[in-house]
């Protein structure tokens, strides 16, 4: 015998709608679901553990800041490739280096007060026996200069870093050059100079570093080693800052004077 249950029709419809809405949301459908078979079918169609399609994205970073990477709708990111192409704005870091192949440097950046690059490496192809770099960085804010592979033996470095107001040069390295004949290298007002490197016995006349109090111990020794032996020739003079001179050992002073250099 069939039993009947009396229920509130409106309440029953409301309750079934709640269930149907839940099934539709889970199943990603908007279809009308009849009770019970429609709902049953819809529930059975719901896939558990569904994986959204994967997506790979590539982005390019061109400036500092925050970049958000989001997948397209309905997808998940499986891989993000980042290409960095931030334009260098200069500065004093090791990465800010301008490399030039050039055959002379005379007046090259003279009086360019603010250089885009602060550090320079030169691979030189000079036209003549004398490589001229006089005044190349006079009046600039260069911080380091290195020179490699010259053919020239003679270098003109007069007023190389000349500046009335002082300059920022910290490193000057020509130890890998072929220079054997350097005279009057210009370190006027180079109060920030810390590292100086010349080829061995390459300086032949008048080295003035009396305005450079911050020379490293290694640089001081390199300078001594770079003085050419002038025995039998006219003596020449090396000037060092008082602070640097006070740090010299007796052996270093003897090494200087025995090469016929006067230390002032």
């Amino acid at each position, binding site marked *: 015998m069939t039993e009947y249950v009396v229920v509130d029709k409106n309440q029953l419809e409301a309750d079934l709608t709640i269930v149907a809405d839940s099934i539709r949301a889970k199943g990603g459908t908007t279809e009308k679901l009849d009770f019970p078979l429609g709902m049953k079918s819809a529930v059975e169609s719901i896939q558990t553990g569904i994986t959204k399609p994967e997506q790979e994205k590539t982005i390019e970073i061109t400036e500092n800041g925050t970049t958000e990477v989001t997948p397209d709708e309905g997808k998940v990111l499986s891989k993000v490739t980042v290409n960095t192409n931030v334009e260098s704005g200069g500065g004093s870091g090791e990465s800010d280096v301008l490399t*030039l192949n050039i055959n*002379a*440097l*005379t*007046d*090259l*950046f*003279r009086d*360019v007060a603010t*250089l*885009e690059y602060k550090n320079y490496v030169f691979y030189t192809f000079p036209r003549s026996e004398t490589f001229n770099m*006089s*005044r*190349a960085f*006079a009046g600039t804010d260069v911080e380091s200069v290195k020179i490699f592979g010259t053919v020239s033996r003679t270098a003109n470095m*007069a*007023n190389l870093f*000349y500046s*009335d107001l002082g300059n920022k040069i910290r490193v000057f390295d020509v130890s890998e050059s072929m220079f054997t004949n350097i005279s009057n290298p210009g370190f*006027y007002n180079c109060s920030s100079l810390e590292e100086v490197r010349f080829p061995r016995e390459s300086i032949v006349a*008048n080295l003035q570093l009396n305005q450079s109090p911050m020379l490293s111990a290694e640089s001081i020794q390199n300078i001594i080693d770079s003085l050419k032996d*002038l*025995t*039998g020739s006219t*003596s*020449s*003079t090396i*000037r060092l800052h*008082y602070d640097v*001179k006070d740090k010299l050992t*007796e052996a270093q*002073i*003897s090494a*200087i*004077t*025995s*090469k*016929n*250099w*006067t*230390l*002032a």
Partner: protein
Amino acid sequence: MKLETKNNIRILTPSEGMWLCNMTDRVISDKVYLGKNASETEWVEIDDSEKARLETLWESDTEPSETDSEYAEAGKILMGVTE
């Protein structure tokens, strides 16, 4: 001015309140260690006012002169300097 030798190093020192000056090399110093073949006669004593005068004179001579170097323009082009 006093010349003394210590461990084969010849040291030249000025009188009190004075400086040593080499006019040829344009060098002024408070103490000089002479190269083994250098002559102490290259050095003279000067006072503070002469020191100041010479330093000013030599400094003005040191300033680089104007030049029409062909490389000056090249450098400015490299740096994007337009004036």
